[in-house]
């Protein structure tokens, strides 16, 4: 499966990098290798670990094709980093964010729900593929 970088994902990485939420080492040693596992989805043991990979949901209802990759206590800031991923014909990286409270999470899921629909309709911007 190919990994598509959407403009939403790029924007969120820009913001997280600007706020120094994670370091280059965090990205190179943890985030990138984990995201690259999507190439062999679902054939990596980590996808069976629901602390790392789980369906995305809003108000108890799963978002069709929506999943979250999760990192706990990442880096020096010990952040709860989340990456929403649309598993459609390809794996679409949608948005990385720091989970702080349930309200933030609910807003992120509402945005993810809308963006999944936009991807299905072919109304999105692709900023390359993760190789």
């Amino acid at each position: 499966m190919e990994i598509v970088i959407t403009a939403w994902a790029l924007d969120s990485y820009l913001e997280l990098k600007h706020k120094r939420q994670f370091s280059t080492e965090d990205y190179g040693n943890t985030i990138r290798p984990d995201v690259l596992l999507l190439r062999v989805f679902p054939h990596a043991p980590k996808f069976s670990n629901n602390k790392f990979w789980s369906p995305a949901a809003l108000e108890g209802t799963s978002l069709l094709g929506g999943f979250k990759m999760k990192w706990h206590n990442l880096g020096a800031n010990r952040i709860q980093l989340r990456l929403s991923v649309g598993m459609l014909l390809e794996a679409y990286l949608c948005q990385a964010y720091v989970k702080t409270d349930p309200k933030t999470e609910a807003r992120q899921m509402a945005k993810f729900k809308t963006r999944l629909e936009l991807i299905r309709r072919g109304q999105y911007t692709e900023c390359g593929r993760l190789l």
Partner: protein
Amino acid sequence: MRAASIAPDIKVEIVEIAHEMNQVGLPKEFIASAVSTAFEFEGVYDLLKMWSQETDSAERDEIIADVQELIEDCSQSDKIEGVYVRFDDLEVIAKNIRSFKDNLRAVVDQNGGIKNLSTLTGIPQPSLSRFFNSATMPRRATLHKIARALKLSQIQIATKWSR
């Protein structure tokens, strides 16, 4: 959720939330766009419900900024091939974008500030605050709205990192 299949009670609920938004003074252009987008995208309807049920004003502002982001996302009609950016370049690009936005913010402040810009553009103040405080790539449509509102030249809104 497509406009054609949306349940009448949900449509009414959306209109009622729009009325509430009007009462608190949100720009009419924003409210109209939020309603038409919520009629078509359930995630936007979910955000409008969250806004209506929320009592904390800071959280309400965040929801408004999210809705505005989605209005802009949903206005894109096709797939676009954007620029590829290497991870190692993110920091430099973020600094470049921040510098551009800080300069533009100075011009905005010389012209009545965010509140006045919100009135002129129809973009809610929380969205403009998020725009100027973030390192995300500015949308050309937003830059053009700002330029038209403040009578700026193309040079003043020119940046390599927009989309």
